[in-house]
């Protein structure tokens, strides 16, 4: 239990912000996005179009994926102009 959720255990109707409010949503995933950073042109289209906000934008605008919460929708792979994001089935290399 985080600091925020503990605060509201005393009969109040206010919710507090938590990352992963529905748990580790990465477990919903069937296919995971894998980014080939050597092809990336740092256009950030995957970052802005990710519904979940799990494309991590680095200081130099390079991108990586937060697999704990990525739901595996594949919007990033579909929108990448260089097609350098591939969707790979979980459990396969």
């Amino acid at each position, binding site marked *: 239990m985080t600091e925020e959720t503990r605060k509201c255990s005393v009969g109040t109707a206010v*919710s507090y912000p938590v990352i*992963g409010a529905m748990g*580790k949503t990465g477990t919903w995933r069937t296919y995971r996005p894998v980014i080939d950073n050597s092809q990336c042109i740092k256009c950030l289209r995957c*970052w802005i179009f990710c519904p979940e*906000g799990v494309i991590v*934008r680095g200081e130099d605008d390079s991108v990586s994926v937060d697999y704990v919460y990525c739901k595996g*929708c594949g919007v990033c792979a579909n929108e990448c102009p260089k097609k350098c994001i591939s969707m790979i089935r979980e459990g396969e290399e």
Partner: protein
Amino acid sequence: MAIKDMPREELLLPGNAACPGCPASVALRVILKALGENTVLTIPACCTAVIQSLYPKTSFKIPVLNMAFETAAVSASGIKAGLRMQGKDDVNVVAWAGDGGTYDIGLQALSGALERGTDFIYICYNNEMYSNTGVQRSGATPYGASTTTSWSGKTEHRKDLMGIVRAHNIPYAATACVAYPEDLYNKVKKAMSMRGPKFIEILAPCPPGWHFDMSKTIEVGRNAVQAGAWALYEVENGKTTFNGPSKAILEKKVPLKPIEDWIRDQGRFKQLFKPKRDEARIAELQAQMERDWDKYRRIVAGECAEL
């Protein structure tokens, strides 16, 4: 505003309850980047009431009020009045509702708030059906689309909500689409810079409701704008301006595409193609799209009575 210049901070946290590929999440992330932390969101019953997740946790880093279905706009009026009494007039008050809470159930409250001149932004994310409750038809569902309450395809055309909003003579009204985040960001920023009621409608293609693959959310939205099935424009103090690909369609630099290009990939229109092609209904959809564009051209030319 280029994508690179948008703020890094996320006010909608990951690990929320949205479906994979949800267009409302994309739109929320973009509008909250534009609005910033100094914002109060009021939401009626809609998908976002689910996206925020379950008590005592929420995925929003800003204050969000959960209201009854018909009260998005009227609660924004109350919040704004309360904040003004506390001397916090600089807070952005935003009503965020789906098309059910805007076109149908919340219409009189919206009309009232626009008429009273409440200083707020009303944003309707339009997925053209009641997706949260399991895909029922709404006033925004297009002709021929299948929902659980219009199995063989809706028999009526959608209503012209922007026409209704424009008739209130508000300072700013605009349409946007999740596939054009720069355009959406700029429109929210412009709305924030004005006083009085502002209205923005966002097209949000819903993968489970429209029956397409969840990776195609943005692609379907982009196809809608490029085909002419959705127009991007803004009405600023009575002056209508078209943006992006819609400008070229309006000026006839790009011809209107056959509506088939847009509807073919969506499962909700499959009854128009199977078991055999329904020429009459496809032609009716095409004719309605052409009537819409004729109306837009008349409005821009200043010939329309609405201006």
